[in-house]
């Protein structure tokens, strides 16, 4: 396969992988602080994308034409709105179920996902149809053989990298991050150390959901199209990526995200019997992987006092 084509595949893989990673980081954050899977995460992403879209339409209707302002408005509004949504979910759906078995949390968030998805479909005007997403980023591009490098993709990729680095710094360099990791390590001890458990959980959910919103916007700009079902698939894949990486580990999640993207690309490109089987391939690999590495790539610390 010629080099330009390869480069193209790598670029696509990076873009998609970045989105998967952003979603997966959310899953792993939630699991870190509460040992739960927030399965509505994918649909939270959808809400993020649609919030951004609505903001765009609103601000433009208000007569603002300049791209940068529109762009920043979309990002800011969407991220904050969705972060708030995340906190609400944590406070009123996840925390109340702490004593119940883990499956209950899994199911209640799955159902919440349905609620969010169906609400977008039913209450957004003609929400059942795909919606065009504005292209606000510079779209100039250079062609190197078969490789077509677009400025907007590059910008998004860079932005994604910066966001991830930001989260990494936040978790490892700040007091807040320390508190989050403390809660993740051992709740009781963290409490006794005078950490406000509730606050930390809410913050973690805010951050995770904010990331989802960002991924949603990125998704919108990348495909110039959003639809009510976009989150469902991304949610499952994000979850898979987080698991592959090893729940509770940020790096694992990022790794898992890019791995899954790679898996799909390979499934499409390299499989002899055509791209139709790429999902079969991807999920088969995952099952086999789980048999080989039952707790993911980056082993989750299991400290069982006997």
């Amino acid at each position, binding site marked *: *396969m*010629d080099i330009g*084509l390869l480069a*193209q*595949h790598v670029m*696509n*893989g990076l*873009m*998609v992988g970045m989105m998967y990673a952003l979603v997966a980081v959310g899953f792993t954050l939630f699991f870190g602080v509460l040992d739960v899977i927030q399965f509505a995460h994918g649909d939270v992403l959808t809400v993020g994308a649609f919030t951004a879209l609505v903001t765009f339409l609103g601000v433009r209707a208000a007569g603002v034409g300049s791209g940068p302002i529109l762009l920043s408005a979309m990002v800011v509004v969407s991220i904050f709105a969705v972060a708030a949504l995340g906190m609400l979910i944590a406070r009123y759906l996840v925390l109340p179920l702490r004593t119940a078995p883990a499956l209950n949390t899994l199911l209640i968030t799955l159902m919440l996902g349905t609620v969010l998805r169906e609400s977008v*479909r039913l209450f957004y*005007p*003609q929400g*059942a*149809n*795909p*919606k*065009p997403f504005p292209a606000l980023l510079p779209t100039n*591009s250079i*062609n190197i053989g*078969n490789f*077509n490098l*677009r400025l907007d*993709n590059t910008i998004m990729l860079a932005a994604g990298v910066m966001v991830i680095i930001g989260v990494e710094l936040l978790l490892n360099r700040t007091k807040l991050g320390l508190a989050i990791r403390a809660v993740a390590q051992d709740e009781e001890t963290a409490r006794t150390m005078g950490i406000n458990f509730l606050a930390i959980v809410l913050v973690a959910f805010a951050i995770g959901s904010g990331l989802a919103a960002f991924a949603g916007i990125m*998704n919108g700009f*990348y*495909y*110039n*199209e959003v*639809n009510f*079902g*976009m989150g*469902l*698939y*991304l949610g499952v894949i994000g979850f898979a990526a987080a698991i592959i990486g090893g729940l509770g580990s940020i790096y694992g999640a990022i790794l898992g995200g890019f791995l899954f993207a790679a898996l*799909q*690309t390979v499934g*499409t*490109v390299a499989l002899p019997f*055509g*791209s*139709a089987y*790429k*999902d079969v391939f991807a999920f088969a690999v995952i099952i086999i992987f789980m048999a080989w590495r039952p707790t993911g790539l980056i082993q989750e610390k299991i400290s069982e006092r006997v």
Partner: protein
Amino acid sequence: MTRALKAAMAILAVAWLAAVVPAEAKDKVKVGFIGPLTGGVSANGLGGRNSADLAVRLRNADPKAKYEYELVVLDDECKPNVAVQAATKMAAERDIVAAATHYCSSTAIATVDVYHRFGLPVVVWGAVLPDITYRNKYPEVHRVNGTMINQNDTNAELLTKLGYKTFAVIHDTTDYGKGHNEYFSAALAKRGGKIVGTFGVGSDQQDFTAELTQIKALNPEVIYFGGLTPIGVRIRAQMDKLGIKAVFDGTSGIVSDAYIQGLGALAEGTLAFREGAPTDKLPGGKFFMEKYAAQKYDNPPEAYGAFAYAAMDLILDSIEKVGPDRRRVIEDMAKVENRDSIIGKITFDDHGQNTVSLITKYVVQDGKWVVWEDSEYASGKRKLPRQK
């Protein structure tokens, strides 16, 4: 009993009749509609339901109508098992005389046996899989829209005539997409076009850059797409992202306002094919559009609204003619020939398939689906990508 009493009763009876008859009490007749009201393609389902509903309303508003009709609507979620349940419910309810059913081929093919068993006359309004009418010879099952065979012949013919030689095929892995792939490949082979690559994709897939990058390397002149609007929009958008210059050649599945709304300017130059004459070309079509708009439904009729309307109208016609009786309606439907409708003349062959010879070619021009013949592309004013 005494004569006086008899007289009194007679008078009463007359009086009663006099009182009742003028206040013409039409008896109620139930007719059914089934389509996907939830899930990915619900836009088309809702459009179809509204159109069928429109047909019923207009008929009820018509003073000449013999009966007052009530529309019973069920959801098949575009899932066969759900469809079988809905079909059973409708067919088993004896006072539903006939129904317009199914947009998704998978649901239509799953339910034909049910209709046959319960003897419910149905008119399929959207599903295009040939087997629905041709696998069995059920007198109950009819279809106003054509099959995907007709579509793909016309499609291959036009594109080869325009001088295109190399094609890449993307189809979703539902029976709709797979069927289209099959028939288009066959039709194209007859006309000497070459398929450089075929890609099956999931009907809920979001990212197509991997497939499209492959296609870019194969560098076809045309990308043929067998699938429905949602992923059609995504694929067209992502073609642009990867800077692929090729004709986007779709099927009836993307002939919808949603497709253009979803893409904006990018939709320009997309080709698609659909059975029946274009709605607005027909005397009835204009009328349909106006009436539909007048009802202020919250969804557009979409590609097959007109067919749903025609199917329901056909049903109402024959009920008016032979009365609310399933068996008689079936007999009457068998005789349908050159029946005028908003989708053109309807003639059922011995399989109950509308033998619409006419397939309309569409191209998107300035954000509208324009009939090919009167488009600026046909006149040569505009050119499709890579057109010689």
